[in-house]
Each structure stands twice: as C-alpha cells, then as structure tokens.
C-alpha cells in the first residue's frame, strides 16, 4: 500500500479503516534461498536491498522477538559520516547518502533530520586529530567544517564556552549529520521488504545451524527447521551466541551501553552536540526530549541495563557544557548490548563455512550504518564479492594486521 497525501487525507476522513498491516505475519516456509537471522535494522535493511536492489527472491528474516527490538529501537538516533580512516569513512558516507533519500526509497517517513553534528574541540592535539579526520571525510565525499571558538559560539550559543575546566576552542561540524526516528527505520525497511515478498517471521529464534561438510544447509528455529541456500547473521550484541552455534569464536565482546532521555522540553538544541573533553553527546527529539549518552559501562554484559557510575559520568559531562540542563529531568535510562569488535570497526564478510555470512561488530555505531550495512551485506550475499565501500570489513583483518582502529586502542573492546 503506497502512502500518499491523498491516502492520508482520505483515511483521516473515513476513520482510518483502510490502513493495512505494515508487514505480514507469515508462517515460515520449509526452505528459502536466503535466510537472514536477526530482524533488527541491519537484517531488515539487508532484506530490503536484497529484494529491491539485487532482485533476489525467496528471502526470510527470522526474529526471535519483535522486529526492531534490539539496538535499532534503543539508541540515540544519531546519523553522521565523520570517521577518520578511509576503511570506514567511504562506507559511512554511503550510509549518509542512503539516509538522505531514505523516505523516497521506502515511501516511509523516518524523519531524517539533518540538523548537523558538532564535535567540540578543547585542545590543540584534539584539533590536529579533527583536522586529519575532516580531511579524510572530504576525501571521501563527505562534508566537514572546522569551526573556531567564535564559529562554535555562533552555531550553538548556549554552550558553556568558558566552563571552568575544559574551555571550548573550536569544533568539527558535519552539517549533513543529524538524527533519524529510530523505530521507524526498522518499520520502514520491514514494510518495503515485505512488499517485495520477504517473509518477516517474528517470535522465531534460531537455535542451531545445519552444517554439512563445511556448508550451511539451513537453520533450526523455535518454529522448526528451515532449509536455506545462504544464511546471513546480523544479530549485533548476540553475534557471539549465534556464531557459537556454528562453532565459531569472534573478535567481538558484548558490552552494555546506556542511553538516556529527558522529559519533553520546548526546543533548546538544534543539532547534535558531542563534548570533546567528557563522555557526553546529546540531541533533542521532535517530541522535545533530550536524548543523550556517553561511554559504555566497560564490562561485558548481556543484561541490557547498566549501573550508576556511567549515569553520573554522563550527566556530569552534560552539566559541564550545558549547565542549563540541570533542571531537565531524566525520564528513562536503558541499556543495549553492543557487539564491540577488537578494533572498533565492523565486519561484513563470508565465514569459513560455505554459505554462512556474518555482519556484526558495530560497537555503539550500528544505527547510523543501517542503510549501508544492509546494502553492503545484500551485495555480498547476492554477488559473493564485498561491496566497494566495505572491502576493509573482513574477518581476517586481525590475523593479517589490517585493523581499522579509529580510537587507536588496540584489542581491548571496552576502550573503543
């Protein structure tokens, strides 16, 4: 069903009786050409691009709960392509471009809002690093603006420039960055994939792989066995658990990242602000809530909840640069499971098991990658060659010493 201005008006005047389910609730078929495990943003986007762009047929997405219930439904909704290393930046810039035409691609308004993403600078070494990063961005076709203190003042006058501890000396702005209504991304991709014939099967947990002579033949699920030509794993924080069923260990640990939202407030912030001397980033949703976050808690966890030290650390960072938010009240805090990789960058690759493909290691940056991840994974599944922008995201890069380590922290996932 196409959404149009006419349709919206007609339904409003006739009691909304004509709206159809956004996606079907099919029973699983005994076999598919491609089975995608994971009905999150990446799995659903993969299904959409497989069906729509790569014209693949007979695809299923298996979701153990309800679609979009993982990190796509519990993040801080920021999209940006401001990475410092070429292995990443080209990919994230592709993602940014896909965000920019998402509504038209999907006929679904995910409220892509390019309000700008500003990273604050507080020291000379930080400026040096941001300049290097800005140049990487521009070389990959992204936009970047270096601001001095005056420029930041004009852009975001309400920041605490002379905060007693780490005065703001500048900023790196990506005007095209912004926010997207996160849940709608999952629903929009689901609707599009469904309309192209993809079976989205909720409440269907993958419980094992059927692997014969080094080739995957299908998956066992809580709703029975399903045969598959190819199996694609896109399960974010649960990557290790799912791949362990195939007997594989990954260069990934699962960590908790907390995020926070305040009560609704009249417009305060135009864009996304990232504090450079503390662990704090913030934007304001269309509903008015300040959506903010900081560092991961730092210990491995599958609990989807965190602890107070990080909550306090994040709020301290917020008060340092925006001391007016003291009177804004935190409404909800929650935690997601991050698939923290060993270099802080993702993996989109074949595995050593024929027919089994893996997508994961997104750390806390998977949301912004959703469209490009879907496209690149679909490309890999359809063509068995990596997408041009994702050639660096191999599984063997650690063995070969080809890490893409934006933060320079090495093989310690909780530092990325």
């Amino acid at each position, binding site marked *: 069903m196409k959404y149009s*201005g006419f349709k*919206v008006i007609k339904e*409003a005047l006739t009691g*909304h009786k004509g709206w159809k*389910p956004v996606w*079907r609730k099919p029973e699983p078929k005994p076999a598919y050409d491609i089975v995608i495990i994971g009905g999150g943003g990446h799995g659903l986007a993969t299904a959409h691009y497989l069906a729509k762009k790569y014209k693949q047929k007979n695809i299923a997405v298996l979701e153990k*709960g309800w679609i979009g219930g993982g990190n796509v439904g519990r993040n801080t909704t920021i999209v940006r392509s401001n990475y410092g290393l*070429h292995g990443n930046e*080209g990919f994230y810039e592709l993602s940014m471009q896909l965000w920019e035409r998402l509504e*038209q691609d999907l006929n679904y*308004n995910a*409220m892509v*809002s390019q309000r700008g993403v500003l990273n604050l600078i507080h*020291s000379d*070494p930080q*400026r*040096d690093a*941001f*300049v*290097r*990063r800005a*140049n990487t*961005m*521009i*070389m990959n076709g992204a936009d970047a603006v270096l601001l001095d203190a005056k420029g930041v003042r004009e852009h975001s006058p309400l920041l605490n420039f002379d905060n*007693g*501890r*780490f005065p703001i000396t500048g900023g790196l702005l990506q005007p095209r960055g912004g926010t997207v*209504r996160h*849940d709608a991304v999952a629903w929009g991709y689901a609707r599009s994939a469904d309309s192209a014939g993809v079976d989205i099967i*909720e409440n269907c947990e993958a419980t094992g792989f059927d692997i014969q002579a080094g080739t995957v033949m299908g998956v066992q699920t809580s709703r029975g066995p399903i045969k598959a030509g190819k199996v694609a794993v896109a399960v974010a924080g649960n990557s290790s658990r799912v791949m362990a069923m195939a007997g594989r260990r990954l260069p990934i640990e699962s960590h908790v990242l907390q995020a926070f939202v305040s*009560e*609704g407030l*009249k*417009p305060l912030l135009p864009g996304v602000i990232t504090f450079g001397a503390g662990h704090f980033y913030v934007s304001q949703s269309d509903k*008015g809530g300040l959506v903010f976050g900081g560092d991961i808690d730092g210990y491995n966890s599958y*609990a*989807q*909840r965190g602890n*107070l030290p990080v909550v*306090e650390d994040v*709020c*301290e960072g*917020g*008060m*340092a640069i925006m*001391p*007016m*938010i*003291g*009177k804004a009240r*935190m*409404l*909800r*805090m*929650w935690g997601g499971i991050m698939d923290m990789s060993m270099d802080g960058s993702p993996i989109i690759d074949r595995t050593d098991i024929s027919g089994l493909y893996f997508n994961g290691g997104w750390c806390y940056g998977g949301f912004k990658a959703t469209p490009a991840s879907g496209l690149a994974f679909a490309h890999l599944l359809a063509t068995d060659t990596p997408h041009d922008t994702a050639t660096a995201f191999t599984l063997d*890069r650690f063995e070969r*010493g080809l890490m893409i380590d934006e933060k*320079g922290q*090495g093989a310690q996932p909780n530092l990325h």
Partner: protein
Amino acid sequence: MSLVDFDAPINFKFNGKALQGFDGDTLASALLRNGVKVVARSFKYHRPRGIMAAGSEEPNALVEIHASGVCEPNRRATTIKLFEGLDARSQNFVGSVDRDLLAINDLLSPFFAAGFYYKTFMWPRAFWEKLYEPIIRRAAGLGSIMKTPDPDSYDKGFLHCDVLIIGGGPAGLLAALNAGEAGKQVILCDEDFILGGRLLSEDIDVDGTPAADWAKLTAHRLMMMPNVRVMKRTTVYGVYDHGIYGALETRRDAIGLKTPRHILWRIYAKTSILAAGATERPIAFENNDRPGIMLAGAARTYANRFGVTLGDNAALLTNNDDGLRTSARHVLDVRGGESVVNTKGRSGVKSVTLNSGQSLPVDGLYMSGGWNPNVHLTCHKRGRPKWDDVLSCFLPDAGNLPADMKVIGSANGAFSTQAVFDSANAACKTLGIKAAMRPKSEDAPVKVTAFWHVKTKGRAWVDFQNDVTAKDIALAHQEGFSSVEHVKRYTTLGMATDQGKTSNVLGLAVLAQASGRTIPETGTTIFRPPYTPVPIGAFAGAHRGTHFKPTRLTPSHKYSAEQGATFVDTGYWKRAQWIARPGEKGWRDSVDREVLTTRGSVGICDVSTLGKIDVQGKDAGKFLNKVYVNTFSTLKVGRCRYGLMLREDGIAMDDGTSARLSKTHYITTTTTAKAGPVYRHMEFCRQVLFPEMDVHLISTTDQWAQYSVAGPNARKLLEKIVDPNFDISNEAFPYMACGQITVCGGTRARLFRLSFSGELAYEISVPARYGDALIRALMSAGEEYGAALYGTEALGVMRIEKGHAAGNELDGRTTAAHLGLGGFVSGKKDCIGKVLSAREGLNDGVALVGFIADNPKDTLHNGAHFSAELGKAGPNEDLGHMSSVAYSPELKHWVGLGFIAGGKSRIGETVYARDFVRNHHVKVKIVSPHFVDPDGERLRG
C-alpha cells in the same frame, strides 16, 4: 481529620493570580481548594487538563515554577509542597492556558492518529526539515527550560543499611518498626512529605484510632530510634547491581536558592523491602480527560487528607468495591451494568452521558478501574511481573525479583489494610525479624471485575499526557503493531513523564481486547529506571564548572603562574604552555624566544607530569626486557636508555627512558598521558604474565618533581646547585648517564643526562616537596645565562626540530617500524607485542619522515593528507598525513613530521600537503625528520 493547618495560610501565585493555600497543602490541593479547573494542556491535542491524581503518577497537571530569572518546567502540581511565594504557571500553550491557540490540533485530531507522521510529510522532500519539522518541534515539548546555567546546587551522599524499606505507607511503617525494634540498621524512604501513604487518605481506623493518627504515632516512634533513618521526600528511583539503590531526596521545592535543592543518595542495602503501594487505574471512555474527572482514590485524598470540597454533585464510575468508599452523589457501578459513554464541559466536566442515554449534570466525575501494584522497582533488573486474574492486576513474580528484595503490602497485591499489615509481618518473619506489633484494621475483600474500555465512536484516553486514545491502540493493532512494545513505540503509549503509571496496564488491556487475546497472551509491561524523573543536575552533583574533573598541579605550578605562564590542560594536569614576557605580542613571540634562548644558552622546563615507575628486584632487567622492545638487562648501572613499549598487538604503546640506578633498581618514565595505562599494563605483566619474576613496581609520578635543564649552558648552571662532591663533567657524567646526587647543600636528587630538545641537557628530580624550591634555585642560578623558563609549546617545537615522536605520532595505530624504530625490536629476545608486530598489515612501508614547504614562506598544517598531485584526491590517492608541525625559529621556516607510504625511500621527493577543510594546499619536500643538529653533536657536548 484533615492534615492541613488552616491556621497557617500560604500565599502563592498561579498564572499570575494571587491565591492562598495552607501549610500541608500540595500545589494541587491548593488549586482545587481555590476552584482552579484547567491547570495544563495535553501534549499533542492541547486539550485542557485538570488534576487527575494526588501523587507522583499525575499525568496532566504539569506546571512551570518560576523565581527571579529561574524556571523549572514539568513539575507535577501533586508533588509540590506548597510554599510561601510559589509562582506556578501553566505550560505548553500559545496564548493562555484557558484559550490555547494550539487547541486547533484537537480539531485536526483525525489527521494526527497513531503513526500519522510516518506516512506523510514526505512531499516534497526538502519540506520535512524546512517546514514540517520546525512546526512539530515548536508545538511539541512540554515546559520551557531556561537557557542560562541552573543556579541550584545538588549534593550527593552514600548510605549503608541492613534493611532498606521503600515506601512509608502502612506496610513500610510496620516493616520499619519491626526491623528497627529488631536492632537492624534501617532506612525508610518515602516520596511524600508525610509518612502514612493511603492511611492519610482513607477514612479508616487502625487499632481503634484513626489511621492517620496511627501513622503519625508510628512515624514518631521510628524517628526516635537511633538505628532507623527516616527519609521523607526521598524517592528510591532505581535498583542496581549488588544491593545498590539510587534515591533522590527533595530538600526544598523553591528554586534558585543557595542550599542544595536535591540530594542524590546511593544506598547500599543488604536487604530491601519494597512497600511502594499501588496506583489506581483510569477507565477509558469518550472524553474521559476533562478537568474535573479524577481518580476516585485521589478524590478521597483531597477530601480526607487535604479537606478540600471538590463538589457536591459528583458521579463515581467504578468496577470495584474500593471505589465505593468514595463519596459521590451518583454511583455508577459497571458491575451493575451502568456506564459512562461520554462527557461534556470544555473547561470542566459539566455532565456525563450514561449508557442508558441519560445525560446527568455533574460537577465532578471520579473513576476507579482497579489498582495496579507499583511493581516498577521489581523490574529494574529485567524482572517481569505476572498477571493475576483474580485481582486483575500484575503482581511481582517472586521467581525473578532482584536478589534480596521482598515485596509487601499493596505493591504485592495485599489490598485491605489488614492484609497489608499481615504481609509486612510475614515478610519480616522470613528475614528473621519478629513482629513488633500486630495492628488491626479493615479487612474488606478485594472485589473487582476487570473493566477497561467503553467503546464508542469518539476518543477515549488511555495515556492522558501523550494523548494516546483507545482508537490509536486499535489502529496500531490494525496496522500489525501487535506486540506491546510495538504499540508503545508506534503510539507513544507510556512514554510520557509519568512513565505509564496510569496508562500502561490500561493500554495493554485495550490492546488485548482489540486483538482478541487475554492480557497474559498479549504481553506484559516492564519499567525502566528512574521511578520518577530525576534532575540531570542531581546526577551531576557538585561535579560542574571547575569541579567537573579534578585538577592536578605540579609542584612548581605557583612559580610558573607567578612568571605569567599560560597553562594548558594535559589530561587532568595543568602544564605551563608558554611564559609571556612584557612586550610579547602573541604566543609565537614567547615560544620563539623560549626556543632560541634554550638553544642559545639554557632553558628550564617542568617535566614533573611524566609518569615515573620505580622497578626493583632481582629480575628487574629481565622484566623490562619483556616490557620493552629494547634490551635493558645489559644496561650498565649509572646509565639510561630510550625504550619503546608495544602493546601485545604489536602497536607502539608508549616510549620513555629507563635509568639503572643499581643492579636491582631501574626508574622508568612514561609519557604524561600514558602514566596510568602503562603502570596498569606493567602490573599486568608482573602479576599475571610473569609471576615467577622477582620484581616490584610502584608509581612515583607524584612523588618527584622533575625539570629539564637544556642548552649549551646547562652544565654550567647545574654545577652551581649540584653539591660539589658530585662530578657532572662531560667525562664523569656523559650523555645518557644517571645518578643519585644531592643539590643545594644536601637535598636528595636524581640526575639524568637526557635530551628531548637535542641540546646538552639534563633532567633533575627532587622529592615533590622540594620542587618549588628547586625551580626557584635553578632559575636563580640561571640568571647570569639569561635562562628561560619554557613551556610545552617550546618543548614541542624542539622535539619536532629533532624528529622525536610524541603523542601525535604514538596514536595507537603506529608500529616501531612506522616510527623508524624497527631496528630496536630485538632479534632474539621475546617481548610483549613482538609476535603480532610481524603481521603483514603492520609492515606496509609507511614511515615517519620530515617535511618542509617547497616555498619556505608557506606554513604547514597539521592534519593535512599527502597526495602526489594537486588535483582531486580520494582515498586511493592518499599517501599519508602530517602529524606534527612547528615553526622553527632556528631554521626560520616551518618544519613538519608525518607518515608517508614508502617512508625514507622517498626523501628528496615532493608531494602536496592537502588540508581540504581549511583549503590550504602546499607543495612539500620530503626530508629527514632530523632538522636540527642531525648528527647529535650538541647533546654530547
């Protein structure tokens, strides 16, 4: 029985109008007492709203509090204790709260159904951000936040106890009394400013006395117990791991004063008892959101506790016996087939339409859809409550409560006062705590028949604040959003500032009906912290402004400040960046002078912030061999050596020097930034990887003040303060020598002949308490040579001139080979990082080289990337990047260090340094990174 002191009037303002209430009132009770009906506007449709509840579950009556120049938005009128001078204002309207221009949204409501946004505003594309979204954003939001710093302060505290009791109603009071009498360390928290909970609201007796009196007496007894801490106005907002609870205490309601407004407590409890009570549910029927429509229990609270006369012609709609306690002229019991299908009255309910078709004029409508136990805190560790059909509510699932938590009273489904008391005593018994008393009270059986929604054509509100109606939920289901979580996200049900306290279960029930499932089949609902919203300022506490992070000062900080130093933040340290002299016009003047003076005569720099690790033991040398790529076991006593340390992944971690003071004693230095991580890493190697080695480590960074003395006159200067029995001539104390000496007549010191600047240079350290004296002694001794105090900028210029790598080069991605130090990796011995440093990807031929502009007048930019040609350059054309640049006052042109593919093999070639973001593109020559004194003659002089 009212608990309001009518002899103590309190003056306050609401929307500018002067009103009067009394001590003991909340803002809500005072507004009702003054006949105020419309208090606020709803979120989406801007419907006029009054007061629906009497506690923290209030979804409607949100107001802004004002004081001179200060505003606090989104305060619930029901939880503000009335105070003299309170200036409360309605929020979320354009015009006035009584005539809100945005109420047009209500007329357009057919368009604003659930999910409306996702289907529209896409045409044309650019209009979303330019037109639609700004309009939506302005209409959305609730209160306004001021744009100046929050003037209030917030404090933090830590408490420990045996038993934490959450909630001071009948259950909590009795449990606290029991635990207190049993000698336990007890903390009792309640969000209200009077203890007693529902005992304050109901017209019942306990042990023959009015319930409120019993509560007062019991509270008094508790406050007399030295082992019981009673914390009123303290909300336990979250449950965390290992018995840690977060609590927010409200110290005052007024804003903009000096004393702390809130205290954020972290409570460490061995056991907790949750006695958080229950919250009454509304019933969904058409236009159930009008001012004057109130929860029945709240109506009793206002009548009994606050002595407010709400009206004399009210109706009651109930599905349970508890509701029947409410005094109302018209009683409509759905169990008897009576029901309300609509209401009328724009700014206050004036009549209700019954299912019989009759229109009944009323001045108020009280509704009771049954009670939901406040299970919120049982869910904070992901526990899921279970549906109970008899009680028609979710109860905590005893199987997945947080460890060491007991739930008692109505929070656990005990709804008569007697059952509440009995459950408190029973739970205490399981904890080995005897009942201190067995109070007697009413024991009415729970009689409730599930009843949720009167289906009509119009809108029946479920989530009042967010304007989610039963139709929205049905539409969500129709569109396939049938999981509870999907419904919440699609409709925003339960996402308002009340966190779904009155709406979640009702919404779930409406969804169950729409989908033809039972409630357990439909799902459950869990809650996230915080229980009620907590100010961000309270979480930050005193950590703001200059106290955001600690500040570390070196022993000579005061001296540097006296000399006019400009300081730079390096981690938490403040370091002198440059020291301006009169007449210098900018930082470059100062830095150039500091460099030229040092290179021409002598300069002194505070390097105390460098990490220092004392390494001692029989195996100290062997240990350092493992930690560094270099060999240290062969280092002679009295000598220093530069060392490069790798991470196990083969990447350079840090560099520094190690000095061997004796056979079993080394001193290792680290960079300022890595002092902590390197020490941690070395302890890991010592304790975990090489436990068999006899070696001990201690960080002595803070124990020693250290100064670099550099320049051709450095030795002459030092000879003036080093005690004469120590020979520091070039022969006795050559380059890379070290020793323990005394200075200034017997003060213990260590001297290292190290040079970062490339000059004849020393580093001298003394115990930190002598740092200030030493810098003064050094500068005074240097006077005759015109010695300069130099800062980190001059230090940086000189190290770039010498081609030394520093933080910008050791960025966590570079290897020994990249840094031109591949030769250091010892061929034979093992060290951390050696095996993995051999991986192909880390041996890519990229290496550190020097750069100078082809035209010496050009400046160099840090962060520029290199390309062979000047045209458009993408990733494939990228040859590397500039990592450090400086203007060399000695060479009188810019010099740079950078990494480039091919490394030293390209020396002599030219490339372009491309700073796209600053639009600065310069032709540069690749040269050796050693710009000044490449043969190192000066430092050996």
